[in-house]
């Protein structure tokens, strides 16, 4: 089966979008209006499993659904207001981050160091790169204080990167077809 498998592609994109939505239930609110959320773990996993082309699409779907008002972001938030809020940059960063993770992780054989690198550079660095300036802008802060205040996310995000690495490697053992779309599932 070598043909392009659009159905599988679409369904996998959608399932990761759904997974990111579900992970929104795990959250810790933080002063400053940007929550700590397990959704970033979902972004890292999407990048690793879906790759650089499809992963950002899954994230974009989450953002579109949030934009039309569905309460799917951390803490049951949604609506266009979010995209004018302090966390808007981070949300954009998720899209870029998913691409970067995909590029790094799927650039060769999946290994722990590749995954750890991808999650750190794509899932943390890239996201902050978009998130901190926008947060500074919205809250009327300077770049430096904004950057320092977002250090509060770093321990959690490093932990999530570690977890994402462990999960990806375990998933490769548990379900190898996860990393190639052209194997059909066992049917009933």
């Amino acid at each position, binding site marked *: 089966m070598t043909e392009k498998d659009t159905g599988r592609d679409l369904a996998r994109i959608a399932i990761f979008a759904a997974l990111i939505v579900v992970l929104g239930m795990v959250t810790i609110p933080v002063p400053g209006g940007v929550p700590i959320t397990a959704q970033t773990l979902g972004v890292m996993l999407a990048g690793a499993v879906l790759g650089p082309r499809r992963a950002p699409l899954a994230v974009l779907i989450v953002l579109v659904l949030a934009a039309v008002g569905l309460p799917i972001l951390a803490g049951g938030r949604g609506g266009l207001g979010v995209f004018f809020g302090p966390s808007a940059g981070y949300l954009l960063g998720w899209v870029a981050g998913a691409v970067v993770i995909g590029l790094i992780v799927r650039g060769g054989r999946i290994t722990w160091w590749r995954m750890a690198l991808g999650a750190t550079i794509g899932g943390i660095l890239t996201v902050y790169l978009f998130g901190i300036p926008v947060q500074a802008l919205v809250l009327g802060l300077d770049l430096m204080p904004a950057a320092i205040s977002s250090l509060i996310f770093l321990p959690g995000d490093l932990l999530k990167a570690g977890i994402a690495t462990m999960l990806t490697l375990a998933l490769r053992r548990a379900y190898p077809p996860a990393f190639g779309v052209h194997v059909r599932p066992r049917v*009933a």
Partner: protein
Amino acid sequence: MCGLVSPDTTLPTISLDGVSVQVDGRPVLSDVSVDLSARHIAVIGANGSGKSTFARLLNGLVRPAAGSVVVHGLDSTTDRAELRRRVGFVFTNPDAQILMPTPAEDLALSVRGKDRVEIERLVERTLERFELAGHADVPASSLSGGQKQLLALASVLITRPQLIVADEPTTLLDLRNARRIGDLLLSQSAQLVLVTHDLRLAERCDTVLLFEDGRLIDVGEPCEIVDSYRRACG
């Protein structure tokens, strides 16, 4: 109850000729050749014997590594799009087959492309026929198992397929729901290929195919084949 109906030769034919299927280089179906023109065709056999693979050949979900599959005059590799318009496929697990958030939307999806009024009329009528009218706009995930399978079936039948392929559509259901879905499938005017572990249901068909280890080992009268399968299982 068994084997009284003779094959209806006015029905179009399903022909497999020397068909083999491989997954990851491993053969899962070997050299299957058969011509089928009965109205109701049951497919039985052990887990992993190749039943689902056979069913999925019939609308091009699986491609043969060798041989040809011709369904109602359409080649399953070259005329796949047209084939899928004519073949309706019912899966075991309705959860995977219900693609839209609500029953009404899921049915509308099946008949998209028609004009709005026509779609609404069709959807409404179909919902009524399957006793789902009261659930048109609830989340599909909140339906009961039987209702979900009814909806999955409705979304296939609403397109008036010429051939229905159903892969164990009753396994998750209780006696009454299973009978209901079985009756519904057998009462359609379309030709039916029914994969099932329910041997009683198989006996209600006109022809039975028995698979073993990726080979089609027997075709014929329901009673005979079902009995020989029962005996083989000890």
